[in-house]
């Protein structure tokens, strides 16, 4: 009877010890399943929260922050296109092909897997009310991170329903595709409507 108990104990002890010794190999062989590969994109206001600028004046500078998190399983190379549109140009959504507006500028950056990057962006818009038509706002420039870009062919028409001139700055996320060797739209964008006070 004592032999039987000792035998069982020895076998259990050997099995446990074998499992313990084999643990580095088991760790290598059993890979944790990764459910979904995606990228998070969020926009934050000047105080790093969801308080966004809305009522702005010409030449008023405001800072936005982009939080981008990489869940793609490896290092990724991103690009954020900065675009501007008025109410007539605005589409409901850019999921799919993205906007056909040409970008004013862009920000490029790399993020390691499971890491988040916060990118600051300072913007100001320069505009004046049209001399002959007070219901028309003529855009002149947009200043992004101290670089002034000319956008003087764009105008904004007075919205009588909402009582204001409205412009939309939006940001599209593009991801570098190693196989195609080009940036591809990642189906993610964030947008901010601004009431542009004369």
């Amino acid at each position: 009877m004592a032999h039987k108990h000792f035998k069982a104990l020895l076998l259990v002890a050997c099995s446990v010890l074998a499992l313990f010794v084999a643990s580095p190999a088991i760790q290598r062989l059993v890979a944790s399943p990764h459910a979904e590969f995606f990228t998070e994109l969020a926009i934050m206001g000047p105080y790093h929260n969801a308080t966004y600028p809305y009522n702005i004046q010409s030449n008023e500078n405001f800072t936005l922050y982009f939080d981008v998190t990489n869940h793609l399983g490896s290092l990724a190379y991103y690009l954020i296109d900065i675009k501007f549109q008025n109410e007539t140009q605005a589409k409901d959504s850019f999921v799919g092909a993205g906007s056909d507006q040409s970008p004013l500028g862009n920000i490029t950056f790399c993020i390691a897997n499971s890491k988040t990057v916060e990118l600051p962006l300072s913007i100001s818009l320069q505009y004046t009310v049209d001399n002959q038509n007070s219901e028309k706002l003529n855009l002149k420039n947009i200043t992004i991170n101290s670089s002034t870009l000319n956008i003087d062919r764009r105008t904004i028409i007075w919205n009588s329903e909402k009582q204001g001139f409205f412009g939309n700055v939006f940001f599209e996320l593009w991801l570098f595709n190693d196989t195609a060797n080009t940036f591809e739209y990642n189906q993610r964008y964030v947008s901010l409507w601004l009431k542009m006070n004369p």
Partner: protein
Amino acid sequence: MKFIKVCAMGTLIVILFLGLFAFSVFAQGNASSSISLAQNKLLICYEQVRQAEASGANVDSLIVVLNDAADLLSKAQLAEASGDYSLANNYSEQSLSRLNGLSTQANDLIEKAISSSNQNLNITILSIISSIMILLIGVGSWIILSKKEKKDFNGSQAF
């Protein structure tokens, strides 16, 4: 005489304008090619850092350099879009110089990661062999003890 003077003045102004135009075109072209160079270099470095990461190396410090270079490149592109070609050129050259040596660092990390991975593989193989041996010892002991138990039982019966 006056006509010649006017003609000379006119020619001088035209030459001056052409010179300015040529300089502006040259500056623009210079900035564009510098930005393009920085973009290509950034892509090459990104691919190398990615390879280093895939081989299991810790690439955090390399990503910091990549992001510095990418930030300078973005600034260069914005400066080019705003027509400040000299600033664009300056930023893109800074971006290029920031990437200097990154390829070598990435390759070093790849080599280290490969050697570490080989070491890990050896440990894995060793752990598999050891665990098999432990299991065999366990099973062997079980068999020996069973035989001994049987022998003892038969002996006591014969007695």
